[in-house]
């Protein structure tokens, strides 16, 4: 993974000291809250229901074991012993004191971590496929370009005060595990007719109040033009994005209002007018960054060694964990391990300091010291030898980190909701927990198969409910928590927005409603068909009929 040089380190150190001064100016009253708020947001500091919340960046979801250990330490010493992994591959701490945050950031800076631009109207954490570098069929490791974009976008003098937040995601494969179609800019690596790698550029995707699937504005962009083209997109947005209404200020609104073709033309015009090569990286810089993402020195190992196959035969629990949580690695003899942070009854995406340390230790022992954070709020160990999987599984199980539910109904994505968030209208975590409880039987979960449930506690959609196979949106109906259901959303390369099924359900009814949707699926599914495929084949009516049969 990327390692800071003296320049990267100096910038992060300087930003910590600049933020320390800003905090002091606020504490002394020199800055009003109105002045301080944009400044603290630019460094990831929110004020939530119970306390401040700090969102620490995990660039493109990649962490070293040492960084994860430091996050555990920070959780223990500055917070209440846990953190929350988010749908943008970052981590959130829910209880830091403002006056302590500069020191906290100083400690993070020592392990090359920061909270720069994790909030505010600027370019946010660039997210990427959590299987980057280890999945088959990748054009190139997208994290190389995520790192290039990260540097270019950090404290960018022209784009630090945009109309609204700006989110970029990159995928290196046709399989999209980075949800690029619901980002402000999505980049899909691809090849031109001559086989040269480059990017398909999508713009104007997003969720929130106005969910939109992004539009392709450029089928192929050569790699060397990546930054200049992004600069053109941002310049058009900075100048023309709406500033009169925060709910209409994202780039998706601009793209919709002028039309994708016209938007593409405006970007092209701006881009063509830019001085040639102004933003090309100097010779050697791309290679320097690529070197950090070169594949490790894999050993020459047989695929599916006999011992591994034998454990699967003899230990059905292990076999079930392999089936749900282990993915194919491009290197024979290796595997990708997903660590579920969705134990039944836990808060989705939360990890205690002890759990973080356990994962860090296991990453060092079994996974070449690297961990990934997924936008579905789980962790991934990207490079595990198949011959080590049994031992790793036992160790994970010992720490409660081996729930065999990745991609299944109890692998729920949920925002913090009304339990933590000042924007929320309803709780999301207890709804997730009660769904897990209803479907606690893992055999039943495996029989149901892949079913992505996503829960948001308000219309801002941080739980990504619009792209859930089943989406749940919490609303406030006359002071009571109420939930609207959608079905058929998807965040992958077949991206779609969920369809509202009908009238909503009270807190006491919503889990029954979800179970009814699952029953409807089981009744209609063709052999081997997942929930999403059944919906796409039969439509919403069979689900509605069953759900509202009593009405």
């Amino acid at each position, binding site marked *: 993974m990327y390692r800071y*040089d003296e*320049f*990267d380190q*100096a*910038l992060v150190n*300087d*930003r910590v*000291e*600049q933020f320390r*001064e*800003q905090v002091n100016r606020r504490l002394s009253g020199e800055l009003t809250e109105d*002045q301080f708020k*944009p*400044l603290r947001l630019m460094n990831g500091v929110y004020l939530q229901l119970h306390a401040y919340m700090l969102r620490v960046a995990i660039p493109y979801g990649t962490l070293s074991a040492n960084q994860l250990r430091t996050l555990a330490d920070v959780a223990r010493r500055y917070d209440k012993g846990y953190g929350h992994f988010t749908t943008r591959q970052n981590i959130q701490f829910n209880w830091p004191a403002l006056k302590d945050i500069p020191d906290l950031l100083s400690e993070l800076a020592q392990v090359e971590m920061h909270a720069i631009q994790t909030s505010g*109207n600027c370019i946010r954490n660039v997210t990427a496929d959590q299987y980057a570098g280890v999945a088959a069929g990748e054009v190139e490791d997208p994290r190389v370009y995520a790192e290039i974009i990260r*540097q*270019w976008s*950090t*404290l*960018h*003098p*022209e*784009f*630090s*005060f*945009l109309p609204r937040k700006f989110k970029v995601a990159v995928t290196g494969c046709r399989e999209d595990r980075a949800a690029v179609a619901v980002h402000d800019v999505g980049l899909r690596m691809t090849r031109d007719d001559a086989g040269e790698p480059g990017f398909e550029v999508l713009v104007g995707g997003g969720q929130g109040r106005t969910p939109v699937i992004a539009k392709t504005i450029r089928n192929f962009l050569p790699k060397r033009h990546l930054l200049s083209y992004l600069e053109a997109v941002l*310049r058009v947005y*900075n*100048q023309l994005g709406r*500033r009169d209404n925060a709910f209409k200020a994202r780039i998706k609104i601009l793209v919709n209002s002028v039309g994708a073709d016209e938007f593409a033309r405006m970007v092209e015009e701006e881009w063509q*007018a830019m*001085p040639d090569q*102004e*933003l090309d*990286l*100097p*010779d*050697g*810089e791309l290679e*320097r960054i690529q070197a950090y993402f070169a594949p490790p020195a894999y050993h020459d190992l047989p695929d599916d060694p006999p011992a591994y196959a034998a454990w699967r035969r003899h230990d059905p629990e292990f076999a079930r964990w392999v089936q749900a949580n282990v993915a194919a690695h491009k290197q024979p003899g290796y595997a990708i391990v997903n660590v579920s942070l969705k134990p039944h009854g836990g808060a989705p995406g939360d990890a205690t300091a002890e759990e973080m340390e356990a994962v860090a230790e296991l990453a060092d022992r079994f996974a070449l010291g690297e961990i990934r954070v997924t936008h579905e709020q789980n962790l991934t160990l990207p490079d595990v030898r198949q011959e080590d999987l049994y031992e790793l599984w036992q160790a994970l199980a010992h720490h409660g980190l081996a729930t065999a539910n990745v991609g299944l109904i109890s692998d729920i994505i949920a925002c913090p909701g009304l339990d933590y968030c000042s924007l929320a209208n309803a709780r999301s975590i207890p709804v997730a927990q009660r769904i897990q409880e209803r479907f606690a039987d893992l055999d039943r979960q495996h029989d149901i198969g892949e079913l992505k449930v996503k829960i948001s506690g308000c219309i801002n959609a941080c739980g990504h409910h619009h792209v859930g196979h089943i989406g749940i949106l919490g609303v406030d109906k006359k002071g009571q928590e109420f939930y609207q259901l959608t079905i058929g959303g998807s965040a992958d390369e077949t991206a779609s927005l969920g369809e509202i099924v009908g009238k909503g359900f009270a807190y006491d009814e919503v889990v029954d409603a979800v179970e009814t949707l699952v029953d409807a699926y089981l009744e209609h599914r063709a052999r081997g068909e997942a929930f999403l495929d059944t919906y796409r084949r039969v439509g919403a009516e069979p689900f509605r009929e069953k759900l509202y049969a009593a009405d």
Partner: protein
Amino acid sequence: MPLIDRTGWAVTDPWVEVETLEELPDGQAAILPAEVFQEHRHALDGRNAALGVRLPNDQPVDEIAPDLHRLDAVVLEFPAFKDGRAYSQARLLRQRHGYTGEIRATGDVLQDQAIFLVRCGFDRFEVDAHTAERWQAALRRISVVYQPGRDDSTPAPWRRHARRAAE
């Protein structure tokens, strides 16, 4: 409000700002709203003193681009410091149109923006006394940049390769 230069030094302001053609003082450097300038550009030909315009932040700089050779100052606005449109305006004036006159920042301008403003090509700033005092220190706060700018800092990608070349 004090006027400072890029390094934070207070400078006297040679410009007077007026709203209409009628108010334009004879023989003195004056700034007009861009709209007024455009309406009367021919009447202003051969004016015996320097001329500048104030361009609202929702107007494209292209509108004054043909006349930049006659303008010695452009005043850009920050109605709220969160409103970052003027950064793009300044950058386009410098880079796209090669403008070498004064670009002034007015409105809600805090020390926290100093680095961004200077790097986008602003060279005069209307700020309160407190901000003026802190400007220089604010400029020195961040010692590394990743992007090219209109100040004299070399972006990190070039510094790292210059260092390697020297080794």
